[in-house]
């Protein structure tokens, strides 16, 4: 039941405001005729990272009441210090989090606009749990949102989590039973069961598009359902094949469980567009997303990226990844390990931009790296800083 919205009870004021805004829009000046050229010039400058140099300074010196010698003092330009890490370049896009919550390891699942971070911990004081980290640590270091007792429900696991500023959605995997899709509104509703989905495997398989949930693969196909509940709707023709969900795209035949020479097909469920990637998979760990394909070789150290249409091919010598099926995050960035530039020198974890071919250091590699050293999400990268902290870079906030 929807609540009455007093802010919509605007009566005549709303009508007048609408009219005023429309008339103001008509009164707006036209765009400059060279807008396109200006935009492309600014974009090119931004990408080349030009930095202005310091200017000369002129000083007039007054001596004994009489205007004296005009002295020109030319300052040496200040050394140009370009930020060399992601945190230096994009400080507003980086969050600092504790490495554990309540002594439990966790994975970051979503970054909300108000600074809260949604995480999943497999064993938070005996619970398989979704929790929320407040940016200021108030009222507590973390707040439990949803938890399943591992002792009482040993066959139940939280398998996938997505969230936006309106909704939290998760997939519950249950041994011997169908997976379940659950949702909860952040404004305080109780969790609701949206659907039972068959077995969806271990891959990320839910997407949240505003207030709509898309889930799959299942033997019968991909479905969508309103996050508030309702009847799931099947996308016809999506059953019977192994694919990955990159909403609104399905990528069919990429990664494991595919014949080596089978074509990689991409299908936009929103527009109906279908294309075949011009990419030959050389190893089961290679993969395509909607825009880019990544070949990494069996050992993860022969990385090549190319667009799905075959253009923009680029090799990344000196880089490697342990990630199987990695595709560029937000269709642009890959976190890759870089070898040390000289023998014995430490390597680095870098963020590479497959569009521009540039790379920025995330951090220098420590001597040992635990399994939780690097994490990736739908739009972020996380890394350990030290034994107490990790950082998360929101890739939606950088350019």
């Amino acid at each position, binding site marked *: 039941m929807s609540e009455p919205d007093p802010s919509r009870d605007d009566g005549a*004021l*709303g009508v007048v405001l609408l009219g005023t805004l429309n008339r103001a829009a008509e009164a707006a000046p036209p765009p400059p005729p060279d807008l396109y050229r200006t935009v492309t010039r600014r974009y090119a400058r931004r990408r080349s990272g030009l930095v202005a140099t310091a200017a000369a300074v002129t000083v007039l010196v007054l001596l004994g009441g009489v205007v004296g010698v005009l002295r020109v003092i030319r300052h040496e330009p200040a050394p140009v210090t370009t930020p060399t890490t992601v945190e230096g370049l994009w400080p507003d896009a980086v969050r600092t989090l504790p490495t554990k919550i309540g002594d439990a390891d966790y994975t970051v699942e979503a970054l909300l606009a108000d600074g809260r971070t949604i995480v999943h911990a497999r064993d938070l004081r005996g619970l398989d749990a979704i929790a929320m980290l407040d940016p200021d640590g108030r009222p507590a270091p973390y707040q439990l949102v949803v938890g399943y007792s591992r002792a009482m429900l040993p066959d139940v696991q939280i398998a996938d989590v997505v969230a936006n500023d309106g909704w939290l959605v998760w997939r519950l995997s249950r041994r011997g039973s169908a997976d379940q899709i659950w949702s909860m509104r952040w404004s305080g509703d109780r969790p609701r069961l949206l659907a039972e989905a068959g077995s969806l495997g271990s891959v990320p398989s839910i997407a949240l598009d505003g207030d709509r949930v898309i889930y799959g693969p299942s033997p019968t196909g991909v479905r969508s359902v309103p996050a508030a509940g309702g009847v799931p709707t099947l996308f016809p023709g999506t059953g019977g094949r192994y694919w990955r969900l990159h909403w609104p795209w399905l990528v069919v035949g990429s990664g494991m469980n595919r014949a080596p020479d089978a074509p990689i097909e991409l299908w936009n469920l929103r527009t109906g567009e279908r294309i075949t990637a011009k990419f030959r998979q050389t190893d089961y760990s290679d993969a395509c997303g909607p825009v880019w394909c990544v070949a990494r070789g069996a050992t993860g150290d022969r990385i090549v990226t190319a667009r799905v249409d075959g253009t923009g091919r680029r090799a990344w010598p000196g880089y490697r990844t342990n990630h199987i099926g990695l595709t560029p995050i937000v269709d642009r960035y890959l976190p890759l390990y870089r070898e040390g530039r000289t023998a014995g020198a430490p390597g680095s974890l870098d963020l590479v931009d497959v569009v521009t071919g540039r790379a920025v250091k995330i951090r220098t590699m420590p001597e040992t790296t635990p399994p939780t050293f690097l994490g990736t999400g739908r739009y972020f990268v996380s890394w350990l800083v030290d034994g107490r902290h990790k950082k998360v870079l929101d890739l939606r906030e950088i350019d």
Partner: protein
Amino acid sequence: MAEPDGFEEFVSRRAAALTRYGFVLSGNPHDAADLVQEALVRLRGAWGRVQRRDDPEAYVRTTMARLHVSWWRKRRRERLTDAVPERWAYDPGIARVEEDSGIWRALALVPPRQRTVLVLRYYEGLADETIADRLRISRGTVRSQAQRGLRVLRDHLDPHDRDILSTERRRHV
């Protein structure tokens, strides 16, 4: 640098509409031009992805709305004065708008996030859920920001202009 397919055509086709939107968002032509340019620069960087996954128009408008709110926060520019900025009275385009009501002048006194919510609701005609998603705020915050913005407008209308809220004057709008 090779230019991506379709980007120039998009800019050419949508520039006027985006500039009008930027003007309504910011209230002045200079900020409007900055918003449009910066949002298009960002779209240029993300063109391949946006063109394939999203609606470029929605991407640009969302970017402009978010930039407008965040730029105001960063600049800490204080326009919330009791006096209406006098320069707008000399802008011939705005003079025509102001002839109809004091709403445009009163809008200059609405804080940026509240103004953005009002523009998205009334000018763009978006539902609160969509506004919440675009501004990355909760739906409850959308409603409270809209309420407060409307209250600022009501509070700053001249008694004469309040006549426009009566049934008899609605025919002029």
